[in-house]
């Protein structure tokens, strides 16, 4: 009789992330919706403002991070929504993986999703708003990754909670958006400083908040996640 040993915490997380990404890759429904939503929002934001009164460079950072937040919510809701069909979540919980692995796997898949949307949205904003993207690309990717980590850690936890309520997808933005304030604000402020050609040191105090937020909330959400599942 040969029994395979259950995978370790991170190996199991990688397996779960691969499963979620495979579902997303085969259907592409949420990803396409998030991309189209982002492009639409970029165009509408630009049109809603008087371009002669507000410079595109002043408008771009705020637009970029607000769109990023809302398109992230589209993917985050699906994260546990897909497990509801046929109660797939029960099979996942019955399998010999730790609850923390389920959280990390789900969060990892969401991170790839959000970064994928960013990879389209950032160049699109640069194109429509005529931004000097190549000059600041390196630091901007750094800001995007830091912001995405905080966003998916909180978003994945609340997504797990929201699917078990009567309000489902309506509840996720209500719970998550106040938590996105210390992400959107530092991200938009440091992007604005980078785009204005200011030295990177000026963005550091903002980035420190972002890094601290990521550390605290990745740990806190991973620890809190098992409480959202039991019974």
């Amino acid at each position, binding site marked *: 009789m040969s029994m395979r040993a259950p995978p370790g915490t991170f190996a199991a997380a990688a397996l779960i992330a691969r499963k979620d990404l495979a579902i997303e890759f085969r259907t592409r429904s949420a990803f396409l919706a998030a991309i189209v939503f982002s492009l639409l929002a970029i165009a509408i934001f630009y049109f809603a403002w008087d371009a002669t009164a507000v410079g595109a460079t002043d408008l771009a950072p705020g637009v970029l991070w607000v769109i990023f937040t809302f398109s992230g919510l589209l993917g985050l809701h699906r994260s546990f929504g897909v497990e509801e069909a046929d109660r797939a979540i029960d099979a996942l919980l019955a399998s010999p993986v730790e609850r923390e692995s389920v959280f990390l796997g789900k969060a990892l898949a969401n991170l790839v999703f959000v970064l994928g949307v960013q990879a389209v949205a950032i160049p699109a904003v640069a194109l429509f708003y005529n931004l000097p993207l190549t000059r600041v690309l390196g630091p901007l990717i750094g800001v995007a990754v830091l912001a995405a980590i905080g966003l998916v850690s909180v978003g994945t936890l609340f997504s797990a909670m929201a699917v078990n309520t009567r*309000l489902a997808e309506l509840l996720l933005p209500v719970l998550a*958006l*106040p938590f996105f*304030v210390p992400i959107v604000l*530092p991200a938009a402020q440091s992007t604005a400083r980078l785009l204005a050609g200011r030295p990177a040191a000026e963005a550091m*105090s*903002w980035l420190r908040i972002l890094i601290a937020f990521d550390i605290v909330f990745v740990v*806190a959400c991973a620890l809190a996640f098992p*409480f959202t599942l*039991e019974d």
Partner: protein
Amino acid sequence: MTAPPPVTHRQRFDWLLTVAVLAVGATFVRAIFFTPVEARQGAAQKIFYIHAPSAFIGLYVAFGLVAVAGVLYLWLRDERLDRIAASSAEVGVVFMTVVLLTGPLWGKPIWGTWWTWDARLTLTLFIWFVFLGYLILRGAIDDTGTRARYSAVLGVLGALLVPFIHLSVYLFRTLHPMPIILKPSEPSLPNSMLATFALSFSSFLLLFVALVRARYRLAVTVDALEAEDAAEPSPIAALRAEPIH
């Protein structure tokens, strides 16, 4: 789990709430008629006797109680802790709403604007949103165990969020008056005003305790009624269960 106490349908007289309401009334009388008018701000300054104690109780006492009761619930799984958190959150929302309404009333004549995106105003607004989210979450879950766990998780994460919002909004300028009473040096207020402040803090704190206690009793009654219903279905529930011919 302890057995629910028998439901009493008799209305109990809430002496604590009565005392608290009388104390708040006495505070208003003292603040309006027996406290000197501030030299530069005039009568507008008197709103601080409502604004400051409500802010202190809403932001620190109520929110702190929700977070501490949340941590303890996740550890001990005592439903009484969940009732305390729920009661504190509901009463806290009322106090914070008072803060958000009285602030603009003072801001218009003194600052010249109802609202400004100042650090403290922004922080208060977002904590108010977290509180509202907490109540909406509670309202959207039927199972008591799930409701208690989820709201405890949100309460604890909310407490972790406060310093981050605080830090990020403080990197913007702040326009809000600096603390007058709770600061390291001596309070910079004349004794007559300080006495009114002391009275308003104590009477508002008493009101908070009395309201949380009343709300807690209501939660106990509701839980007991639900347990009674579960044990012996009401005629309406029995009718609902019957197939329609």
